[in-house]
C-alpha cells in the first residue's frame, strides 16, 4: 500500500499545495496544467454525480478507482478540496483527509496571520508537518501489505 500524491485546492481552483511521495508516472504536462486538469476533473465529477444520482446525497463524491490507483476526495463547506491518490488497497480515508484539514490546514495555515489565504502555501512548518503526517499513515510504506 502506498500514497502517491496529494493536492489541496481552494474554492477558486487555485492549487494551494501539492505533495508527491511515490509517483511513478508524470502526466506529461506542466504542473500548472496538471493542477488545472485535476481541478477541472473534480469539478466535473461533482456536477456529474449530482445530476446522475437517483437519490439526494449528503457527502456526494467520495472516491473513484481505476485499475491501478484510487483517488480520495474531500471537500469542506468552505470549498477547500483535498485530493489524495493512493493504491487500490487503501480503504475509504475520508477521516484522514478531514484530519489533514482540521489538524494541519486550520492549525498551521488559517491560524498563521502571515499566510495569505487563496495563495500557494509557503509555510515551511505546514509542509514538513504534512509530510510527516502522510509518512506516518499506516498505509504509507510502499510494500507494507
Amino acid at each position, binding site marked *: 500500500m502506498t500514497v*502517491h500524491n496529494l493536492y489541496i485546492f481552494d474554492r477558486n481552483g487555485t492549487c494551494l499545495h501539492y505533495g508527491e511521495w511515490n509517483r511513478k508516472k508524470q502526466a506529461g504536462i506542466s504542473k500548472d496544467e496538471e493542477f488545472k486538469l485535476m481541478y477541472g476533473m473534480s469539478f466535473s465529477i461533482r456536477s456529474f454525480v449530482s445530476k446522475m444520482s437517483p437519490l439526494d446525497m449528503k457527502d456526494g463524491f467520495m472516491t473513484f478507482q481505476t485499475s491501478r490507483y484510487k483517488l480520495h476526495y474531500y471537500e469542506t463547506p468552505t470549498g477547500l478540496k483535498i485530493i489524495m491518490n493512493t493504491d487500490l488497497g487503501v480503504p475509504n480515508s475520508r477521516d484522514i483527509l478531514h484530519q489533514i484539514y482540521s489538524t494541519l490546514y486550520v492549525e498551521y495555515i488559517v491560524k498563521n496571520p502571515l499566510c495569505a489565504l487563496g495563495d500557494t502555501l509557503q509555510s515551511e512548518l505546514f509542509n514538513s508537518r504534512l509530510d510527516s503526517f502522510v509518512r506516518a499513515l499506516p498505509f504509507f510504506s510502499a510494500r507494507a501489505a
Partner: protein
Amino acid sequence: MAIFSVYVVNKAGGLIYQYDNHVPRTEVEKTFSFPLDLVLKIHDEKVVVSFGQRDGIRVGHAVLSINGVDVNGKNTSEGKEILEYLKDPANYPVSIKFGRARLSSNEKLMLASMFHSLFAIGSQLSPEVGSSGIEMLETDAFKLHCFQTLTGIKFIVLADPRQTGIDALLRKIYEIYSDFALKNPFYSLEMPIRCELFDQNLKGSLEVAEKAATFGPVS
C-alpha cells in the same frame, strides 16, 4: 439493494443505450400560503429550490406539479411562468409537488459524453503507469461501475453502494450486447441499440443480479 440504471456508451462517447431499472421516487407535496418560504430559481429550464429546506423538500429539488397539475418545464400547464404565478398572492394557498428532477434524454446524452472524458482524464492523471480509466466511482448514494471492452465500448451500471456482483453483471451485459445487438443484421455499429431481445435479456439479468446478492459466474 438495487440496481438503478444501465448506460452503454460507444467509443466516441455517444450514448447508444440507456435503461432505468429502479428509480426511487422522492416526491413531496405541500400546501403553501403567501409568501413562499422557499427561494426558487430557474436552472436548466426547470424551477428548482435554491435555498430553504423543510419537510423533505431539499435544495436542488424541482417543481413537478402545482395544484396537482404537472408543470411543463419552467411554465405551468397553462403556459404561464411558474415564478410569476407564485408571485401573485391571489393564487394562494397553492399546493406544490417537489422532487428530484428526472433526467431528460438530452441530459443523459450529455452526462454519458461527460463521463467519457472523465474516464480519459482519470487515466491521464494516474500516478501509476498503465492505468485504465475510472472503473468505479463511489458516492454516499450510489456506486457507478464502468467496464470498457477492448473495442472501446463502455458499459456503465449505477447501483446501490452495497450491491455486490456488479463485475459479473457488467460482463453478462457485454455478452448480451455481443449476442443480441451485434448479431442483429439490422444493427449498424455505434448507433443506438433498438432491439427487443437485447432489452428482454438485459432486464432478465438485472433481475437475477438484484435477487442473488452474489451473481453467479458468467456461463
